[in-house]
């Protein structure tokens, strides 16, 4: 149905103004992921026992907490009241009078139209917590205070977080052609989620064509509790465990029509979701993604407009106490339902996803 081969390699197209030199003087810690193994499983180091926080998790939390402690945050998000709305969906709402959803504009310096970090002011960018890139060694390694490589993802603290540990994951160099989506970026994000290995760590992606038309970036946050959409029931609509390696589910009892994808391994899933996302982007379809369960689960939240990904997932921030106190399940579910796809469009999405999964078999 959709061919994506034409995009292959485009990400690494050398541009005339090679942005490499734009990192002059910029130093950050670099976390190099371990090399992939043939079967797609990742060798993770970190701590000896698997239950403990991974090294990457600890570094992200350390850097974020350090950033917070130095007073760079707009507010202490952990001082904001959270509550669960009574009812079947258990929506979570936060009272935060300092929250400003337009705050991402502050990150123009990272996400500006040129898409590159500005070398002049970079030295004072405390927001830059870490760079993560693919490594070629067997196990991951940490390179302290180094120049970010051009194929990495920059982890940038969001000074106006929706919850603890809110970061932006921004490709360190974005192709200057209007190339939008790169499957390898998604693969990198999925591997980061897998390497962080924390149930609380969730990655979001908003393909919201109106706000950030030129930028690809992800966001991630630590939510101690599952988001409401994660607790919703699912019905299997495609089982490719033995063939394509991915399974598709429809989320049935949730106000937003959504699909859930699981994969036999992180790479297969990342590859599949990359294809789906690229296709949707080409069709100018707005959608959001939630990557959870250490990168093994992805939810596609098909939305006609720009609710943020966490809002699609059932997590809302209220600025006024009045609204916070009166937040009800009916009001929230109506907000979500108002932006969901029409039945016919959702059916199309389902068949599109199944077709892409089928394509993977070949």
């Amino acid at each position, binding site marked *: 149905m959709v061919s994506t081969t034409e995009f292959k390699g485009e990400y690494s197209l050398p541009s005339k103004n090679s942005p490499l030199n734009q990192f002059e003087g910029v130093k950050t810690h670099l976390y190099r992921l371990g090399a992939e193994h043939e079967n797609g499983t990742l060798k993770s180091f970190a701590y000896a026992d698997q239950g403990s926080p991974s090294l990457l998790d600890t570094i992200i*939390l350390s850097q974020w907490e350090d950033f917070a402690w130095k007073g760079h945050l707009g507010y202490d998000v952990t001082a904001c009241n959270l509550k669960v709305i009574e009812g079947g969906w258990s929506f979570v709402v936060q009272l935060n009078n300092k929250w400003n959803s337009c705050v991402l504009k502050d990150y123009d310096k990272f996400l500006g139209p040129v898409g590159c970090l500005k070398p002049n002011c970079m030295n004072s960018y405390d927001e830059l917590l870490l760079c993560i890139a693919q490594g070629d060694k067997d196990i991951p390694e940490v390179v302290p205070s180094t120049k970010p490589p051009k194929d990495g993802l920059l982890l940038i603290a969001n000074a106006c977080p929706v919850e603890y540990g809110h970061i932006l994951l921004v490709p360190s160099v974005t192709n200057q052609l209007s190339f939008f989506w790169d499957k390898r970026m998604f693969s990198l994000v999925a591997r980061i989620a897998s390497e962080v290995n924390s149930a609380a760590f969730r990655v979001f992606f908003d393909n919201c064509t109106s706000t950030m038309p030129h930028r690809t970036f992800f966001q991630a946050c630590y939510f101690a509790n599952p988001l409401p959409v994660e607790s919703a029931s699912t019905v299997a609509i495609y089982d490719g465990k033995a063939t394509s390696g991915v399974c598709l589910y429809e989320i049935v009892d949730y106000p937003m029509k959504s699909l859930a994808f699981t994969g036999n391994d992180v790479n297969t899933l990342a590859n599949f979701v990359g294809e789906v996302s690229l296709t949707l982007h080409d069709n100018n379809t707005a959608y959001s993604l939630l990557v959870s369960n250490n990168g093994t689960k992805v939810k596609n939240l098909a939305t006609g407009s720009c609710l943020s990904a966490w809002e699609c997932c059932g997590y809302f921030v209220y600025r006024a106490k009045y609204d916070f106190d009166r937040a009800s399940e009916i009001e929230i579910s109506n907000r979500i339902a108002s932006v969901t796809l029409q039945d016919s469009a959702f059916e199309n999405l389902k068949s599109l996803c199944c077709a892409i999964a089928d394509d993977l078999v070949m």
Partner: protein
Amino acid sequence: MEEETAASDEESRRRVASSLTSRYSDWVVESLDELQGSFLLTDPSIPGHPIVYASRGLAALTGYPPAEVLGRNARLFQGAGTDRAAVAGVRDAVRCQRPHQTPILNYRRDGAAHWVLLHLAPVFHAADGAVLHFLAVQVPIPPPPPPARCRVARPTVVVFAPCREEARVEEELSCPCASHAGEVFVDVDKRGLDAEEPRVASEHEKEKALSTANSIFSALNRYSKLTGLVVCGKRCDSVGIPALSSSLNLSLGRIKQSFVLTDPHLPDMPIIYASDAFLSLTGYSREEILGCNCKFLNGPGTSAEVLEEINQHICSEQACTVHLLNYRKDRSSFRDLLHISPIRNASGKVAFHVWVHLDEGAKHDFNGLTPEVWQLGAVGAVRVAVRSLSASGSLLRPSQ
């Protein structure tokens, strides 16, 4: 009638004899015999609340051989001059099952009066919070040096009145003359004729009493391994130290750094969680420190200024990183890189303080981060765990 009494006497004797050995092990008595200090254990579950163990040091101090005190109530040490308010304070502590320290005028076997610092501590079953025994340590208080006596209107009675919180303020106890609590409790007629100036225990005696008590707890726990019993000086159930919800316990248990959580809403900010790494860093067992204030780590050379700095940050709900000299259980010291931060729960309120300890002398791999930043990783992980919204909206287990 006679027979019945004899039978119940026999029963009591048997229970006194087996009070310790049935709960710990046969060797616990030998182990206690080896400990320095004058102390006894009583069993509140036996009628009359009798003494079930008396140390050799107690025999030396009081003149009573153990055989003469076993099975009797500990009031046998009191006499005509013993202050009734002090006795009432002890009774109150026993009734409320809480630790208590008071100077008290006791009498030796030969009838001579002597001042001791009585340190009373309930011995709790760690698992269910039941009181198994009471531990009473007696530390003799020497007479004060002759000069520098304050002249105040008689009677200058210093009374430790645990039922009156205002009388327990430390400053007031440092000088007998400063106490106004005595006025409330003075009972001139009933006070003993030979009651000399009441004595005040110095820090030295208080510490000695506490360290004796701690060594007894250690001995009890050492000899209860076989029976699976764990005892502690603080009640670990919902009445005293709240138990964390099991899901929070689980999340915290995964964090590998050395840290404790304290509860700022309880008196004296007790420790309510300690990580395994903290236990191996300091050598204490979890039972020994849960419910305690973090100051047990301090010792000679611990900077008072830094402790004050910590206090100020805690009061203003701010985080701080300090360098501090702290002590392990074996009294070896270590340079402690200590980060303290308030931790907020899902409602945004400060629920705990996290204290992350890092032994600066030990070799660590901080993966390119500074030690100061590295230890913040534990803070972040604790924050995420504590932000969790449990179904009940509470982090604490509902009280039984």
